[in-house]
């Protein structure tokens, strides 16, 4: 019944990374869009979008992603909204990533000197053009590094989707571990696969940060 850890098991773990990648991609796409809205709401001149965004961030940064996934998936189902795990994952991960990215990007938008906004306003540019051509391009330069940094955390965070039935990298490792009882081999493999996924991103983030700080220090 118990079998040794071999190449077959190794590849099963490696291939589970596809779910990790897919979940990360969904989270990032959803969080990117949601985060932009949250960030814009947070820097809005009007009070209520600002308050709403603040509340949103409080709740979704203040509760574990595991619970968010659980409550979205099973909660909606017990209330009779049959929901497929992909959609549940997309919703929960989007909410989670939107809160974090919204907060990160707000900081980046605020890092653009206020003179830039004023200059654009004085030229007669209105909100959309101001954001589109003046503020966001500058904010995005600052944003690349922390955003990629968050992506790394997000990739690791998708392991929590196991609670709603995804056999992604970490979960697959646990399952294989229970069929082989070779925890160190199994978890070393899991760690290595995560490292291969995340490390290039970390390096990229650091490069960007370095390039940016060089560009801004005179």
């Amino acid at each position, binding site marked *: 019944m118990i079998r040794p850890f071999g190449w077959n098991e190794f590849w099963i773990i490696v291939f589970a990374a596809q779910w990790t990648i897919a979940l990360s991609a969904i989270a990032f796409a959803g969080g990117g869009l949601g985060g932009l809205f949250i960030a814009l709401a947070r820097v809005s001149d009007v009070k209520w979008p600002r308050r709403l965004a603040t509340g949103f961030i*409080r*709740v979704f*940064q*203040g*509760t*574990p*992603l*595991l*619970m*968010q996934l*659980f*409550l979205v998936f*099973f*909660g909606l189902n*017990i*209330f*009779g909204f049959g929901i497929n795990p992909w959609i549940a994952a997309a919703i929960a991960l989007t909410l989670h990533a939107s809160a974090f990215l919204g*907060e990160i990007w707000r900081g980046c938008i605020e890092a653009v000197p206020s003179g830039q906004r004023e200059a654009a306003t004085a030229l007669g540019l209105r909100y959309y053009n101001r954001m589109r051509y003046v503020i966001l391009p500058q904010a995005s330069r600052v944003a690349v590094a922390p955003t990629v940094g968050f992506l*790394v*955390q997000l990739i*690791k965070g998708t*392991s929590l989707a196991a609670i709603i039935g995804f056999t992604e990298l*970490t979960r697959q490792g646990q399952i294989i571990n229970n069929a082989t009882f070779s*925890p*160190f081999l199994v*978890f070393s493999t*899991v*760690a290595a696969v*995560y*490292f291969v996924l*995340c*490390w290039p991103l*970390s390096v990229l983030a650091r490069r960007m940060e370095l390039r940016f*700080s060089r560009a801004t220090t005179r």
Partner: protein
Amino acid sequence: MYDFNFEPVLAGFDKLLFGAWLTIQLSCAAMVLGLVLSVLCAWGKTSGVAPLRWLIDAYIEVIRNTPFLVQIFFIFFGLPSLGLRLTPNSAALLALVVNFGAYGTEIIRAGIESIHKGQVEAGTALGLSKLQVFRYIIMKPALRTVYPALTSQFIYLMLTSSVVSAISADDLAAAGNDLQSATFASFEVYIVITLMYLAMSMGFSVVFSAIEKAAFKYPLSR
């Protein structure tokens, strides 16, 4: 339609409170020790010799690019083979410190680098040594600039600390899991512990802004 029944949760609420208390203790201890580790590593990274910098870089990269679950697993099950046997709670604490240290180092380093070069020069020109400049001139303003990043990393740490239940530490998540496995009242348990986490993170936010007001009361220019 599902019938909610919170009775089993209320019956086991003291266990949840104990769990929450341990989560708070673990996270706070990890924050303080992790902060010390971060400051040391950040100092090493900005002013240390090359091999030390490489060592710190390797530490940061390994920790930041692997899952916390795996880290805690290796600490709890791997260290005994080196003769170091830790209780679940102290293994959890060590793992949290090591994890927070890696993120904290990067954050604090960013803070140090944000300090205007002129500050260091002014200290140097006054005859202060490198260490004195770091200790008296850089440290406090650097911590102030990155304080928001540090506190949100802390909240993140507190929320991810639920993973320590994997090595049978008795934190809130573990208490919740035990309660739900004994009663099968899963929804009720999860809803309650979600609210407890939310309350804790809000509570910490309040505490953090109080600390910020007390510790960094000097005004900023402009």
